[in-house]
C-alpha cells in the first residue's frame, strides 16, 4: 500500500503533546517517525499523566503516552552522553525532518541545534515548538498548555457572561500548534523539493492559538470591540443553546432563520420545546430535528464518541494491540485521502522497543558497533 508520506523520515526529540502529536499525524500517512527518549528521562506522558492500564502506573502502561505516539518507532538515547549525542546526529543524518519541543536553547546546548544538525544533513527541515517561540522577551518561559490557553484568550471566552472564565480540557492550545506545525513541516518539504533548501521552523504555541481567534482580534484592532464570554449565545442566531433532554442528556440546537425556527416549532407541536425535549434523549431529539431540517446534535460525552455511528463509519477509533496495554483505541486524523489513505500503522512503542531496528537496520550499524555504543551508555 502506497502512503502519501512514505518517503519522509522524521526524528522526534522531546515529549508530552506539542511535539509528538505532529509526528503522529505525519506517521498516520506513512512517514517513518522515530521517537527519541532516554531511559533516565522518558517522555513525561509515560509516567506523569493517567490513565494507566488497570490503573497501575508503569513506564509502558500509560494510555496518554500511547495515544500520541502510535505509528512510530521508539528508541532510547542518553543525550547527556557524548556517544548518545553522536548517535542522535547519525540518526538525523538519515532524516528529512527533526521535531523538537524542548525549552529554547536546550537542543543547541546539547549539540543538536539547527546549525549543527543541518551540517550533518543538508536540506534538513527542523521544527522547534515551545510556549512563546524561540525569540522575544519571554522566550524562556516554561509553561503548560492548559494555562497558555488562558493567556491566548480562549478561557476568557468560555463560560456564562456573569460567571468566571472556564477551563478547556487539557492543553487545548498544544493541539492547535501541533496541527499547524504539521502543515508547516509539509510546506517546508515542498520548498525543499523545489529549491533544495532546508528550513528551521519556529513555532510559538501562543501565536498558533491566536489564529483560532483571528476574527475577534481583528474586531478589536479595527473596531475596538472586546469579545466577551456569552455562555452559549450567538448574536447571529434566532435560537442557539444547549437544552436538557431525558436521561440527563443535553441537546445542542440552533436556528439561523425564522423559517428554520418555524420548522422547529412544527416538529415539536403541539408541545413546547422544553416539554418535547424532556420526553426524549438527546440522540433521538437530534435525529427527529435533523429530519425536519433543523441544526441539532446531542452533546456527546467522551464515552458517546465511541458509539457514534458517524464516527464508526469514518474509522475514527482504530484498535491496535500493545504488548503491555493490550488493545487500545487510537485516534485517526480528521481527514483521509481517497487514493492513498492513512492508517494507524502500529501501536505506540514501549520504551526503547525499536533500538535494534532503528540503529541496526535503518542506520546500518553492525552488531559490534551497537555493542560498543551500548557499553558506552549511549542507549541509557
Amino acid at each position, binding site marked *: 500500500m502506497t502512503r502519501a508520506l512514505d518517503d519522509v523520515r522524521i526524528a522526534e526529540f522531546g515529549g508530552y503533546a506539542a511535539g509528538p502529536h505532529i509526528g503522529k499525524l505525519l506517521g498516520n500517512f506513512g512517514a517513518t517517525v522515530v521517537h527519541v527518549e532516554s531511559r533516565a528521562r522518558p517522555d513525561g506522558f509515560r509516567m506523569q499523566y493517567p490513565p494507566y492500564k488497570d490503573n497501575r502506573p508503569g513506564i509502558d502502561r500509560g494510555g496518554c503516552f500511547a495515544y500520541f505516539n502510535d505509528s512510530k518507532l521508539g528508541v532510547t538515547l542518553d543525550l547527556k552522553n557524548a556517544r548518545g549525542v553522536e548517535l542522535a546526529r547519525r540518526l538525523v543524518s538519515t532524516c528529512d525532518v527533526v521535531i523538537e519541543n524542548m525549552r529554547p536553547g536546550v537542543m543547541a546546548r546539547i549539540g543538536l541545534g539547527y546549525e549543527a544538525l543541518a551540517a550533518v544533513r543538508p536540506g534538513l527541515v527542523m521544527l522547534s515548538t515551545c510556549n512563546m517561540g524561540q525569540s522575544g522577551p519571554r522566550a524562556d518561559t516554561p509553561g503548560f498548555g492548559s494555562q497558555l490557553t488562558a493567556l491566548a484568550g480562549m478561557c476568557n471566552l468560555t463560560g456564562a457572561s456573569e460567571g468566571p472564565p472556564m477551563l478547556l480540557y487539557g492543553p487545548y492550545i498544544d493541539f492547535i500548534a501541533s496541527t499547524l506545525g504539521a502543515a508547516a513541516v509539509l510546506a517546508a518539504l515542498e520548498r525543499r523539493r523545489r529549491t533544495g533548501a532546508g528550513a528551521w521552523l519556529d513555532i510559538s504555541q501562543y501565536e498558533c492559538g491566536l489564529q483560532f481567534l483571528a476574527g475577534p482580534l481583528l474586531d478589536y484592532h479595527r473596531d475596538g470591540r472586546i469579545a466577551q464570554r456569552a455562555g452559549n449565545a450567538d448574536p447571529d442566531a434566532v435560537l442557539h443553546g444547549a437544552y436538557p433532554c431525558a436521561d440527563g442528556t*443535553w441537546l445542542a440546537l440552533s436556528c439561523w432563520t425564522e423559517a428554520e425556527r418555524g420548522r422547529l416549532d412544527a416538529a415539536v407541536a403541539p408541545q413546547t420545546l422544553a416539554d418535547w425535549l424532556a420526553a426524549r434523549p438527546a440522540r433521538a431529539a437530534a435525529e427527529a430535528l435533523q429530519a425536519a431540517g433543523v441544526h441539532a446534535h446531542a452533546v456527546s460525552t467522551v464515552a458517546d464518541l465511541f458509539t457514534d455511528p458517524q464516527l464508526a463509519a469514518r474509522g475514527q477509533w482504530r484498535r491496535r494491540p500493545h504488548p503491555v496495554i493490550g488493545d487500545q483505541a487510537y485516534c485517526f486524523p480528521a481527514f483521509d485521502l481517497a487514493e492513498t489513505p492513512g492508517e494507524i500503522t502500529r501501536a505506540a512503542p514501549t520504551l526503547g522497543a525499536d533500538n535494534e531496528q532503528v540503529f541496526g537496520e535503518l542506520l546500518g550499524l553492525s552488531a559490534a558497533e551497537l555493542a560498543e555504543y551500548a557499553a558506552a551508555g549511549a542507549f541509557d
Partner: protein
Amino acid sequence: MLRGCAVVDATDRLAWLAGRLLGDLGAEVVKVEAPGADTHAAEWRALNAGKRLVALDPASAAGGAQFEALAAAADIVLCTPRPDAPPDTDPRRIAGRHPRAVVVSVTPFGLTGPKSGWRASDLELMAAGGAMSLAGEPGGAPMRVSAPQAYAWAGAQAAVGALVALHHQRRSGRGQLVDVSAQSAVITALSHAPTFVDLLGVTPTRAGAFMTGRSVTGAQFRVFWPCRDGYLNFILYGGAAGRRTNEQLVAWMRARGAELGPLADIDWGRWDPTRATQGEVDAIEAPVGRFFAAVAKREFLEEAHRREMLGYPVSTVADIAADPQLAARGFWRERRGPDGRTERHCGAFVVVDGRRPGQS
C-alpha cells in the same frame, strides 16, 4: 515555502482558515465568493486576508466555466459542499474532472456515513466532537467557546490534509480527494480524554473553574482567581515545577508585605497536593486569593516570568493586542483594508529561518 502553489478556495465559514494558513505559507490563494457576499465582517476579513477575491457563482453557467478554468490551473481546490448543491459542484466530481488537483472537501461530518447530510454550525460541532461536554460548570449546562472554534479546527486539519495530498501529488503527478470531517477535527481538541473511557471505562466531565482529580481526598483546586483587573490562571502544583512556583509566590508575597497565614510554614519541597484535604487547600488558597485580588494581569505576567513561576493571566483580546512578546516577534501584520484603512491582522503562524513570512 509554498511559492507557486495555486489554491482555489471555494469554502464558506467552515473552512476559511485552511486557505488562510496555506496563504501564510506562501501559496497563491484565490477566494471565490458569490457576487454580493458580505466581505466586511471581521471574521471574513481575518480569515480571508491575503487571498485574491474573485466574485463568481459556481451554480451559474458563466460562473461554472470560470470556476473550471481556475480549478484546471490549481494545485489545490478547497470546498465546503452543501448536500443540496448542484451535482457538478460535488467535490468527487471536481476531483474526477481535475485529476491533477488535490480536492479538499470540508463538511460537518464528512462526505459519507449516516450523518453526512446533517446540518451543523459551530455549536453542534463542538457538541458532536465532545468538546462541550468538557466545558462549563459541573452539573450545569455544557458550554462552547463564545468565538467559533470548530470551524478553525476543521480548517486547520484541512490545511494539513491538503499538504499531505500535495506531497503525494508532487511525487506521482496525481491529485486526489481529501475528505475532512469537522466533527472529527474537534476531537483533536480533547487531548487524551478518550483514553480514560477506553482504558478505564471512566468518562471525563467538565470541571468549571476548578481542577479536581489531583488529590486522593477529592479536594478541588482553584484555577481562576479574581485579580485587580480580571482573572488569573494559577494552580498549586506539586513536583519540581510546583515547588519553584509556590516558593516564588511566597517570596513575592513576603516582599510585598502580604499576610501569609499558613503559607509561611509550608516546606514546598515536601508538600504533596495529591494528599491534601479540602480544608488544607482552602487554608492555603485563602491568603493567595487575597494577594491576587490586588495584582494586575500585566503585573502577574511580568512577575511570574521574572520568577519562573507557572501561571498566566486570563487575557482579553485587548490584553493580547498589547502583549510585548508578540510585538517583539513581529506577530502583527498590517494590511490595507477595502476602505483604504490599515487593518492589523494576525501574522503567519510560523517563523521560517528567523523571518516571519509576509513581513519585511
